[in-house]
């Protein structure tokens, strides 16, 4: 189908975009990569009155390490995250996850910030952000604020971002050299949205795992930190007994959506299998190092 009528403005600066957002509120949408927004327009699932195109704000693109954290600009394309040396060096979890995001033509335009702003329950980058304890910088005419990933994702496509706020960048602490991470997902076709997935990280010392962080996506309405399962793994040797305990605990952390992609019980099973694979992967990466 064809998109409904709308007005289009190319933003000249962040301030310009914020001013338009302040004036038009919920009637306006930021147009980043357009890889999620334009499909909803073409299918007439949304009818914003105004699109504010931020694609020419090139200073919002790129990933740099500032000595403390990795700053990923909102307009950094998925393809550039994939090629980034900064990401490969400081954020191996993101480097492992990014090839799962869509297909080459979508990655060439889709942006890191667009994915975080949208908060699709099956998206990989929000799960990584939560696993890595990142923060998000939001700006509006009212000022600039930072929100921790833990407080940012509220529900199905729901976030802490107010309609007049623009996402500027993500600030992500680098992974330390003594930790290992693993990213596992299940999807019907490579590059499709995941039906289940886990972003995992832990420190491994002579077989014992600590500082375990497990974030689930795909099955849940939002990226979900599995606190009970994390506690069941903390300080344990990764073996069959620990795996069993983690698997049991997971039932109280997750509340899988019941939809065409599967029943909650099926999804819980998938997540358990992926957890086993992720932690096997983490411990074998530690052995190999």
């Amino acid at each position, binding site marked *: 189908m064809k998109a409904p009528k709308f*007005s*289009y403005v190319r933003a000249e600066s962040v301030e310009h975009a914020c001013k338009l957002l302040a004036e038009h509120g919920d009637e306006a949408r930021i147009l980043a990569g357009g890889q999620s927004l334009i499909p909803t327009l*073409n*299918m007439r699932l949304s009818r914003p009155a105004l699109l504010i195109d931020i694609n020419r704000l090139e200073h919002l693109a790129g990933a740099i390490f500032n000595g403390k954290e990795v700053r990923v600009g909102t307009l950094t394309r998925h393809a550039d995250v994939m090629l980034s040396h900064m990401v490969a060096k400081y954020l191996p979890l993101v480097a492992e996850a990014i090839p799962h995001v*869509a*297909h080459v033509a979508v990655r060439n335009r889709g942006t890191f910030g667009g994915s975080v702003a949208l908060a699709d329950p099956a998206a990989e980058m929000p799960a990584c952000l939560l696993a890595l304890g990142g923060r998000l910088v939001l700006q509006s005419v009212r000022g600039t604020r930072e929100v921790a990933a833990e407080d940012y994702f509220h529900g199905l496509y729901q976030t802490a971002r107010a309609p007049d706020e623009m996402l500027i960048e993500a600030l992500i602490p680098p992974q330390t050299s003594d930790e290992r991470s693993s990213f596992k997902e299940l999807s019907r076709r*490579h590059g499709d949205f995941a039906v289940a997935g886990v972003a995992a990280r832990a420190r491994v010392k002579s077989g014992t795992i600590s500082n375990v962080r497990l974030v689930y996506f795909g099955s849940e309405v939002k990226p979900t930190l599995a606190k009970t399962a994390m506690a069941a793994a903390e300080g344990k040797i990764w073996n069959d007994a620990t795996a069993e305990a983690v698997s049991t605990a997971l039932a109280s952390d997750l509340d899988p959506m019941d939809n065409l992609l599967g029943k909650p019980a099926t999804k819980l099973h998938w997540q358990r299998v992926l957890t086993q694979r992720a932690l096997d992967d983490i411990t074998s990466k530690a052995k190999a190092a």
Partner: protein
Amino acid sequence: MKTEETQEITCKVNGERITRLVPVRQHLVDFLRMDLQLTGSHIGCEHGVCGACSVRVDGKVVRGCLMLAVQADGQNIVTIEGLTDSGEVADLQAEFVERNALQCGYCTPGQLMTAAELLAEGEISTREEIRTFMSGNYCRCTGYHAIVDAIETTMKRREEASRAPRPAKGKA
């Protein structure tokens, strides 16, 4: 009802500079097909899933249905017509014909635009890597094997050609 908003754009399409007035809600493939009569780029799903609309914008393959024509202002666009004229993938196209990697041909321009990006990397990929790279392009006819064969063969031929000893220059 809201009025149809238009904007003037100037861009390069297949090497030619053009200026046109476009409705801001028109996507790039409709612009290419309807305003410029470049009908090689196809429309399948119009929501980013099938890849039939793949075009190259500033050197990168993108979904033509997920970019607005107005966003092409100042950019360099190459469609399957331009890619064909340049000869960049003449070897791949010959291989597609050789192996029946197209039947109805609807997906083929998109397959070629995407494969061109992989071939441009100049590296040898495994069949699995080729499949992963091509995963965003649907084909309802061929079952994909022949497409993967054609890309793999082209890659190997190019690699062999680049390693073949060059004829000595000048007089001995």
